[in-house]
């Protein structure tokens, strides 16, 4: 017993030393490298800081004003842009976790080179999501009561708890990847994957279990959330890998190119699946209750029609799908552009999901004057600035990550590991 303890202690000490060695030891170099880079690097960095700065200004004044004044939320539509931005970020994070696990957890070789960067960006995006969410909660410190008096029947509670565990294991996985300890990295990755999928489907269930709201209620939401997360993860991996190589002024090597092609293929598959999802959402909604039909009509020819049909479906799914198929996943730049379109589409997908669910007032069915119309909502400048700030945080953290973990992110040197050993 004592021996194993000692061995463990030595192991941990080794781990700490090698983190020191690989990362912290070269602190000066790191700082130098943070300040060196090409035009794209500095452009993105300055943009990132400006975004965070603006978000900070607007966020602080929103806190001072009170959220009721600052945000465009109402009693009938208490969730708005901030919630959908939060969902967008955690969807992307979960998707990155799922897609990266294909390689370094389940041992599919083509997916291995993207793993380390994907895990890092996954941690970054979930932090961005949490920071946006912080500005939606009026009393975030009261979250201590989720430990003191937890409500185990609440999906929000489970989502929080599971995302907490997910974050811990993602960070562990990343540390192990840096240490080149692939076996514990794969185990942490598997655990993170399980927590991530549970957490994310719970986020879907936050909507899916609101039985007073026809548009959301049912098992569709958790499933749809996971499916769209994978598409989101694919797009994010392509974007961040492409950018990573760009800002380091390097050419994407053969192995990474192959990996990105595989990611592109998976993305195309997920687009097809999601189009299938959307089609059945619309068709089933058209024969439902009047409330649900009204919600669906708002997506087809109402106020969310442009968002849904043009941005979410055409720009976010159909055009990228055509680009991917036409280029046969070979052209890295086109793959990147397709991914940008997909990410934009997914952002609007989140927004539509949150807003269309609230567009019909819950008391619409009792035919009273007060609730005869649809609920309108427009995000205020405060909500927009804070959401953009979340993106800014993600960009800055990603850029610094690219500089600090330059070595580990390179597929051919580090990303591919003899995983056949891991699962023996």
């Amino acid at each position, binding site marked *: 017993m004592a021996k194993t303890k000692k061995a463990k202690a030595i192991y941990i000490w080794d781990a700490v030393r090698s983190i020191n060695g690989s990362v912290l030891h070269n602190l000066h170099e790191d700082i130098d490298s943070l300040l060196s880079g090409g035009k794209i690097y500095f452009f993105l960095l300055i943009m990132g800081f400006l975004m965070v700065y603006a978000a900070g200004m607007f966020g602080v004044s929103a806190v001072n004003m*009170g*959220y*009721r004044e600052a945000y465009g*939320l109402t*009693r*009938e539509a*208490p*969730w708005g842009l901030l919630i959908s931005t939060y969902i967008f970020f955690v969807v992307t994070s979960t998707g990155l976790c799922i897609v990266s696990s294909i390689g370094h957890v389940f041992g599919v070789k083509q997916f291995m080179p993207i793993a380390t960067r994907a895990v890092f960006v996954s941690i970054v995006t979930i932090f961005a999501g949490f920071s946006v969410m912080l500005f*939606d*909660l*009026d*009393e*975030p410190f*009261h*979250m201590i*009561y*989720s430990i003191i*008096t*937890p*409500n185990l*029947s*609440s*999906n*929000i*509670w489970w989502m*929080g708890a599971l995302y907490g565990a997910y974050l811990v294991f993602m960070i562990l996985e990343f540390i192990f990847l840096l240490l080149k300890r692939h076996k514990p990295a794969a185990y942490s990755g598997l655990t993170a994957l399980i927590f991530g999928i549970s957490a994310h489907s719970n986020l879907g269930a*936050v909507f899916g*279990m*609101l*039985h*007073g*709201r026809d548009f959301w209620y049912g098992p569709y939401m958790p499933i749809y959330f996971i499916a769209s997360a994978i598409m989101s993860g694919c797009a994010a991996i392509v974007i961040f890998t492409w950018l990573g190589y760009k800002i380091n002024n390097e050419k994407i090597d053969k192995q990474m190119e192959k990996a990105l092609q595989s990611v592109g293929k998976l993305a195309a598959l997920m687009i097809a699946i999601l189009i299938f999802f959307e089609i059945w959402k619309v068709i089933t909604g058209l024969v439902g209750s*009047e409330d649900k039909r009204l919600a669906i009509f708002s997506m087809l020819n109402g106020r969310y029609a442009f968002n849904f049909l043009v941005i979410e479906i055409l720009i976010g799914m159909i055009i990228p799908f055509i680009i991917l198929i036409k280029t046969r996943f070979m052209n890295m730049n086109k793959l990147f552009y397709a991914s940008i379109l997909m990410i934009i589409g997914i952002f609007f997908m989140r927004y539509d999901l949150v807003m269309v669910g*609230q567009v019909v*007032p*819950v*008391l619409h*069915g*009792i*035919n*009273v*004057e*007060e*609730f005869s119309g649809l609920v309108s909502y427009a995000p205020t400048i405060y909500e927009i600035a804070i959401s953009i700030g979340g993106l800014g945080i993600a960009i800055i953290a990603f850029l610094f990550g690219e500089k600090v973990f330059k070595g580990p992110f390179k597929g051919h040197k580090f990303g591919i590991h003899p995983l056949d050993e891991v699962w023996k």
Partner: protein
Amino acid sequence: MITRMERREFLKLGLTITGVSVGGGFLSVVSNFKKVFASTEEYRKKYPYKPHYTMLIRQNRCIDCGECMKACVKTNNVPGYGYRTTILERYEKNAIGSKREFIPMLCMQCNNPPCVRACPVEATYKDKKTGIVRMHYEKCIGCKTCMEACPYDARYFNDERHAIDKCDFCFDTRLSKGMKLPACAEACPTKARVFGDLSNPNDEVFRIVHQMQKAVWVLRPEVGTKPNVFYTTSDREVSDEK
């Protein structure tokens, strides 16, 4: 007694109004008897709380004077941007006779409250003794999931309290201090709001909810929340003044 004309009017409305079912002998063809009692058999036989607080709204007595809302605002410090109780208005231009109807709304104090299930920190809870859906204001994180979950739009965010606020039948401000009625029921000049206790078979509300001659309904029964606020109409000649 319901006159023939009124019955016809009822039938017309009853068929067009979603979420409200109209019962009674003549109309039983188009309605569901279970819904007349506003709850399922098993629920009706057993009221889990003592006292099982309830409110019966005699809808046709409401004249939209707004006294209930004023009393509520005063008693519970409700800010101008929110409400705990309100009066909704229905207008049916094809209705025979009166074309306007007022529907007082408040928290339904559901027996199966979606808001309580949704809250991550148990800031809102079903009071074990009285069945009132109450708030621990100090716990609320402001995630607003309960507002999304409520099928009756009964909740709002109160900036001053930094928490969600809702009707609690005036438990904090009146009932817990020995008063018998919520402010709205006391203020109503036409006695449209009758406050009562379903665990007591001699209670007026119990007797009205458990008869079959006159329709009693709840709002949005399809959601399965089992509300404790019932709606009915009241005949003027019946002297059931409180």
